[in-house]
């Protein structure tokens, strides 16, 4: 509440400065990209790692949580054998290992018409689309990514293309590293596409993955986008997704998180054209001492758009779940219809749930609402199931699955929904067994 006390740079911040100094000349990019990296790192240094007084990060104090940072990637790793969490789901697969797109590991079949390129190439060309969607985000973690990004994948779905096969961007981290991945996805007008984003890594490594994905969705496009965060149990996941959608688009997005020791998944969605509809859904499942933070900003900048947000979080053992969501309605955005709901289910006495659902409204002819609930499994319903002979664990699994399913099914894609629900059920089946 008082003056910001002068905080000395943390060890992690010092390490990052040294890493940047050492890496700046070898990071990919045109002179303009190199200059932008310098600006971004200066921005990062000015702000430092987000801490509890950085309002959008108030429940995820990275300054306190990130004591050290592992080294930047220096050599190309072999792809370790990692179980495919979506085995059985038909999709093309673009593999990004330690922040670099690896065509030789990827499968581009069934997505004819879609252009896929390594982002590093675009960096070298100085492609101006890079950084455009995040230009107005004032976020130190995004700045850090902009300074240190090594690559990722650039996907172009041309106007009018109807791509039936889902496209997965599979992010794999191979060891104790910090990775800075940047993806750029452009979906043309009248196109339709289904994008999957997965994040995995070794279970025992405290790696730190910082992924920024920028997406632009053209007018009248239809997009389904699902993110699966299954990072290794000791990892730090910092994911940013920034998207703007054109007029009359239909955009649905789901984030499912069960992995990482510390995770933050932030989504920024801006309506760029009228009469568009966006659905944003989330399902978080954490246990042990996991900390999972979902942040969401929906910017209604133009009139006549509708957004629906439904986020569910299940916290077991000593874990912490966070949801910070904000609906902005700018003065011009008359006839906005925005509804945001977040619900937390605490399965253990020691779990915590922190929520901050905000409405910021500057137009009068709007219908906006938000709701939030926090609580445990309803004892009456549980008892009803028990009285019918269902065991307690089974009854709890049933109820928790139903709780999460509402958000997962919100995406409106049956195949992806089924695959994600299976992951949720697996998580529940392992309840009590992975306690840390």
């Amino acid at each position, binding site marked *: *509440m*008082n*003056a910001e006390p002068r905080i000395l740079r943390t060890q992690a911040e010092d390490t990052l400065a040294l890493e940047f100094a050492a890496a700046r000349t070898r990071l990919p990019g045109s002179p303009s990209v190199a200059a932008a990296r310098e600006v971004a790192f200066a921005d990062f240094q000015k702000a430092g790692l987000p801490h509890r007084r950085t*309002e959008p990060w108030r429940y995820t104090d990275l300054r306190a949580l990130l004591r050290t940072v592992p080294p930047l990637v220096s050599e190309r790793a072999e792809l370790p054998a990692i179980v495919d969490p979506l085995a059985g789901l038909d999709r093309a697969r673009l593999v990004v290992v330690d922040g670099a797109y690896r065509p030789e590991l990827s499968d581009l079949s069934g997505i004819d018409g879609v252009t896929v390129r390594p982002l590093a190439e675009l960096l070298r060309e100085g492609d101006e689309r890079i950084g455009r969607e995040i230009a107005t985000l004032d976020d130190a973690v995004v700045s850090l990514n902009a300074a240190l990004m090594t690559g990722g994948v650039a996907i172009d779905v041309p106007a009018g293309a109807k791509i039936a096969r889902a496209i997965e961007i599979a992010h794999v981290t191979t060891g104790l590293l910090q990775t800075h991945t940047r993806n750029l996805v452009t979906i043309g007008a009248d196109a339709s596409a289904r994008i999957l984003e997965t994040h995995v890594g070794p279970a025992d490594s405290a790696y730190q993955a910082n992924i920024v994905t920028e997406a632009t969705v053209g007018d009248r496009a239809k997009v389904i986008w699902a993110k699966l965060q299954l990072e290794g149990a000791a990892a730090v996941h910092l994911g940013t997704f920034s998207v703007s959608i054109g007029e009359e688009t239909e955009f649905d997005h789901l984030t499912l998180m069960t992995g990482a020791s510390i995770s933050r998944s932030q989504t920024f969605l801006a309506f760029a054209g009228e009469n568009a509809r966006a659905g944003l859904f989330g399902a978080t499942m954490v246990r042990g001492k996991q900390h999972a933070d979902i942040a969401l900003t929906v910017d209604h900048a133009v009139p006549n758009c509708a957004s629906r947000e439904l986020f569910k979080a299940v916290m077991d053992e000593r874990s912490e779940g966070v949801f910070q969501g904000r609906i902005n309605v700018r*003065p011009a955005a*008359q006839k906005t219809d925005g509804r945001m709901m977040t619900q*937390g289910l*605490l*399965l*253990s*006495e*020691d*779990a*915590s*749930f*922190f*929520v*901050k*659902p*905000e*409405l*910021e*409204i*500057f*137009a*009068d*002819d*709007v*219908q*906006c*609402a*938000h*709701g*939030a*609930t*926090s*609580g*445990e499994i309803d004892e009456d319903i549980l008892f009803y199931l028990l009285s019918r002979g269902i065991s307690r664990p089974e009854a709890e699994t049933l109820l928790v699955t139903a709780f999460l399913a509402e958000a997962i099914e919100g995406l409106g894609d049956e195949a992806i929904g089924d695959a994600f629900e299976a992951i949720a059920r697996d998580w529940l089946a392992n309840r009590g067994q992975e306690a840390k």
Partner: protein
Amino acid sequence: MVAVQETVDQVRQIDVDQYKYGFVTDIETELAPKGLSEDIVRFISAKKNEPEWMLEWRLDAYRRWLTMTEPTWSRVHYPKIDFEDLHYYAAPKSTAGPKSLDEVDPELLATYEKLGIPLREREILAGVEGAGSRVAVDAVFDSVSVVTTFKDELKKAGVIFCSISEAIREYPEIVKKYLGSVVPVTDNFYATLNSAVFSDGSFVYVPEGVRCPMELSTYFRINERNTGQFERTLIIAEKGAYVSYLEGCTAPMRDENQLHAAVVELIALDDAEIKYSTVQNWYPGDKEGKGGIYNFVTKRGDCRGDRSKISWTQVETGSAITWKYPSCILRGDDSQGEFYSIAVSNGYQQVDSGTKMLHLGKNTKSRIISKGIAAGRSDNTYRGLVSAHRKASGARNFTNCDSLLIGDQCGAHTVPYIESKNASAVFEHEATTSKIADDQLFYCLQRGLSSEEAVALIVNGFVKDVIQQLPMEFAVEAQKLISISLEGSVG
């Protein structure tokens, strides 16, 4: 029904000048020199004949305040306040402290008469028609309490109701025990400033098992220019006690901004209940946003005892800036906190208000009903925190925040923080933002109501849940105020 009709009448009668409390009382005033220093703190303490311990307490606060800076997290914008350009003490010369009504300067009595505040104790007791209802009043004019009514009658019941200045002299042990125990000296910038220079305010002590026989109220009036008012109020309800307290606030219309930085502390012990209502109608500034009171207030209640209850009701229509979060610390098991709020902003007013419900004890319950109405070019923010600590098993909260926008130049914002560290705590929060629907308005017009009347009617419906929480006689007043505040917002 009557209230609505009166509201409608009220709206009709208003001409361009909406703020009817904007007059200045011409009275000789003793002012402290402008600026703040240890000497000023000593001056204030000496003026009030305070004991040494109180002076030390103030000086300690002042020294801490020097190390602090103004908070910036709320959604209010204003030019930097020059704390050296204010008078920290202003008192009508004729008044050295609370006296009997006979001795009060007639000019002051006339002021309160004009404000519609019942100080005519004898006539009320004698049942003179139109003398007002039976409410005990502490009247605070700039930095001093000028009179407190019904003291003797209250004393018979064992209730102490006097100015805080008097309490410091007369009941030092109680004051020492509780002052700063809910809002610590260094709680925040304005609370610390208040602790150093607080001028006057009310003190209420309700002994064990006593139900206070009448409503208590304080009317705050800022009269002098370039003064800050630093109200300090302390209310203690002992085990099983009950008290209902209401404060009202007005100030003259002046071009410059004036500062009001209050601290209110409530303590409820086992089974005690405190109901605290505010009708805040400080001068809001003119149509161009010039002038008006900066209202930076720290209000907090401590449900210290088991099964205790603290209920805040506020109707905020005035002030250029309102920054206040009346809160409840639900420490005792089974204790309850309530916050009912109507915040109306028009013109260039800025409101950032809400509450904190801190659930510490078991089976604690809280309820928040907030109705924000933004019109003109104002900004209206609800900011609230509901938290359950690890041991707060069985905690319950229900929050409902509705915002109504009138016109497209204003903003309404909802910023709730919900923090649960206990699985058995059940929190429910819902918020909506909308405008008065065109078809609702047309329906009323078709029945013959004017736009102003229709808006007043719909708004009165919108705020009804909160109005019902106010003591009867103030509910009518509050409805009038809301309509007046919204004058000129449609059409």
